[in-house]
């Protein structure tokens, strides 16, 4: 039970990778830029999380669906993967709506 949430996140991330690869949405469009966007994005959201936790606004709940591994006080390891998924889904979706239409070149 402890790895259920993490497993769900990893499966979702795997799905995003497949979509990205299949339709050249994000990393398969510009790997360097995608790396920058995800790394900066995740770090930014983690900072936001830490601020919220420090201010006592939110905190992790009591559940056996998580591993219990923390990367910072009240900040579960799973959150890093969740934020990565948030960034990946956002950019894959933008990529989907801006993908090159198959067209016949004259």
């Amino acid at each position, binding site marked *: 039970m402890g790895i259920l*949430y993490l497993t769900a996140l990893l499966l979702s991330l795997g799905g995003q990778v497949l979509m990205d690869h299949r339709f050249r949405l994000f990393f398969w*469009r*510009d790997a360097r830029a995608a790396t920058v966007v995800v790394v900066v994005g995740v770090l930014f*959201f983690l900072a936001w999380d830490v601020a919220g936790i420090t201010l006592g606004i939110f*905190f*992790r709940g009591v559940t056996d669906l998580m591993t219990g591994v923390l990367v910072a006080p009240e900040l579960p390891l799973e959150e890093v993967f969740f934020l990565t998924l948030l960034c990946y889904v*956002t950019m894959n979706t*933008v990529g989907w709506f*801006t993908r*090159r239409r198959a067209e016949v070149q004259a």
Partner: protein
Amino acid sequence: MTYLALNALFFVPVAVLALLALRVQRRRGRPVPWAALAGTGLVLLVATTVFDNVLIALDIVDYDHDLTLGLRVGLAPVEDYAYSLAALVGLPSLWVLVARPATTVPGHEGDDLVTASQ
């Protein structure tokens, strides 16, 4: 500090990034993909509502509701949507600033890859 105030604070760099990206796009003579952003916004709205409610229902996250507005969509505090909005506005903006220019034109993504193979 309330959840709302915290989110407003973190939105400042996001807004700055967006303004920078708008200027760069304009300077390159490229259109802003408004439809794509609106579509993505809709997807994120639905996804956020679903996963946030699930996370809260499963006790994966909890809040001090003295610091929230008390306005919710199901179990989800409305303030939670700020993360998705920040992602929607901030990430594509950063992409515009760091990606190779050819990859930011809607409908012509991968153009440079195509011409390189010809």
